[in-house]
């Protein structure tokens, strides 16, 4: 793979409007929802009654700070990951791309690297924006800083999770090749499958649940380990990376062997 291929994939990704729109949705939803949650918590801080959030803000602050905003916002990154590759198939542009790079794998590698870097940069900006905005809103009630135990790792972990999630989605987009089908699959894997598996009682189901890609992957964005976690934060991230690597490998294999 050459610098030219990276430049080409950058040209491709920046020259379609869907990139800008999905990233905008990601940033606005993540920051907007997180800020909204922080505002509601702050405004109801002294209300009578139970406040489970207050306890969580002490034990696992990033779960509260990131949960709402990125829980929803991550779907925009999933969509972008899928359409970065599936739109080539739906528009027929894949033919132009593969005529230019008939060995195919270098194109996939360049595409993955360029999207990964874009995802990483946008996620880093958004994660820290969310962190500083939300903690500023809550400052009068509770002090959470990057030096609080586990918080810095959780912020970095959140960025890494969102970056790998993008690649995970890209791989599924390349495997399924239809935008709607791939997006439905990714959303099912991220939002639908984990709660369904967790309904099954027993330790086996608990372990299966713990090894699901996004369940394992989000552990690294937690400030501290929770009871019931079957993996440590970095183990969980490793499992998510393995899921993604396997899917990317399958994507590459099929790219080589399927007719375009």
């Amino acid at each position, binding site marked *: 793979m050459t610098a030219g291929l990276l430049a080409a994939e950058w040209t*491709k990704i920046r020259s379609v409007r869907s990139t800008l729109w999905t990233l905008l949705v990601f940033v606005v939803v993540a920051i907007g929802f997180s800020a909204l949650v922080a505002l509601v918590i702050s405004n109801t801080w002294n209300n009578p009654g139970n406040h489970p959030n207050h306890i969580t803000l002490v034990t696992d602050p990033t779960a509260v700070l990131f949960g709402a905003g990125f829980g929803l916002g991550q779907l925009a990154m999933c969509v972008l990951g899928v359409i970065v590759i599936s739109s080539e198939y739906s*528009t027929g542009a894949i033919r132009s791309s593969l*005529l*230019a790079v008939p060995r195919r794998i270098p194109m996939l590698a360049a595409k993955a690297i360029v999207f990964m870097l874009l995802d990483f940069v946008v996620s880093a900006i958004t994660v820290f924006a969310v962190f500083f905005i939300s903690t500023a809103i809550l400052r009068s009630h509770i002090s959470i800083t990057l030096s609080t135990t586990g918080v810095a790792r959780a912020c970095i972990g959140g960025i890494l999770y969102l970056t790998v999630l993008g690649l995970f989605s890209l791989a599924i987009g390349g495997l399924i090749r239809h935008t709607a089908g791939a997006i439905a699959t990714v959303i099912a894997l991220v939002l639908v499958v984990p709660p369904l598996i967790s309904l099954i009682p027993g330790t086996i189901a608990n372990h299966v649940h713990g090894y699901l890609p996004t369940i394992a992957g989000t552990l690294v964005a937690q400030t501290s380990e929770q009871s019931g976690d079957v993996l440590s934060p970095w183990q969980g991230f490793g499992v998510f990376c393995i899921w993604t690597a396997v899917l990317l490998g399958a994507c590459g294999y099929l790219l080589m062997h399927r007719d375009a």
Partner: protein
Amino acid sequence: MAEPPGLIEARELTKRFGDKVAVDHLSFNVEPGRVTGFLGPNGAGKSTTMRLITGLDRPDGGTATIGGRGYRQLTKPLTVVGALLEARSIHPGRSARNHLLYLAQTQELPAKRADEVLDLVGLRDVANKRAGGFSLGMTQRLGIAAAMLGDPPVLLLDEPVNGLDPEGIRWVRNFMRQLAGEGRTIFVSSHLMSEMAVTADHLIVIGRGSLIADSSAEDFIERSSERSVLVKSPDSARLRELITAEGGTVQKDTAPGEDKNGDEGMIVTGLPAPRIGELAASASLVLHELTPRLPSLEEAFMELTADSVEFGKIEPPKTAAPGTAATPTAGTS
């Protein structure tokens, strides 16, 4: 031995889609310096063959090479082969310039090459417009611009005049002639015989995935269709007997109806015009017309491709039932 860089060679190329054989042991060469027309009815396998040559589809058997190398082995393929395949190979949301820019970047070509080919096809004014808003003709021009990006010695054009207005058709036609004149290999498919009649020097004709003819355009007419003679005579019944006795065949009712003299035309095959004239003279019969007829390229094409049963006469026998075809090909799908 080094191959000419512009030579396209297909050897026993075979592609199946399920039970259907799209390309069936197809072998041919496409030589540099001329326009080679790739003809066949719709569904004959022309596009599939071009996709096999450019590595978009994998053959189930056989090989296709350009200058001795497979397309997938080329490191900067756009500098070797320019291809206009389906018009729908462009992201509609991307501008014409960005489409060409990213293709140029993959080949390590300077960005100004994108502007140069936009000038070449006359799309400079709409360079920054989204390609999705282009007319079919503009889209075809953008496809040709992409094909010319790497200044390649070989061009593959799949139905390039489809959907173009007469001016666009003339432009493409002249463009292909000019490029062939520069020594490039031009391989252009069409299902329109009339189009090939004015542009192609050489013809490769396929039907149902198999080769029907591989010859110059003139030879194709000469060989593929029997010459016939139009004969008009006021005494046609008598003349018909003479011709039949001499071994000629008279096709009834195939000539245009009676002319102003009330003569019925006859189409005669199997006898040359001079011999018919001699027969008429020897019997003192009046001839009103004696015209050797050369079939048009269109007629020759229709005759060869109309009925697949006729292919069997000139092709090696093939297994009839697709399910039982035991073809000796290298790979399996």
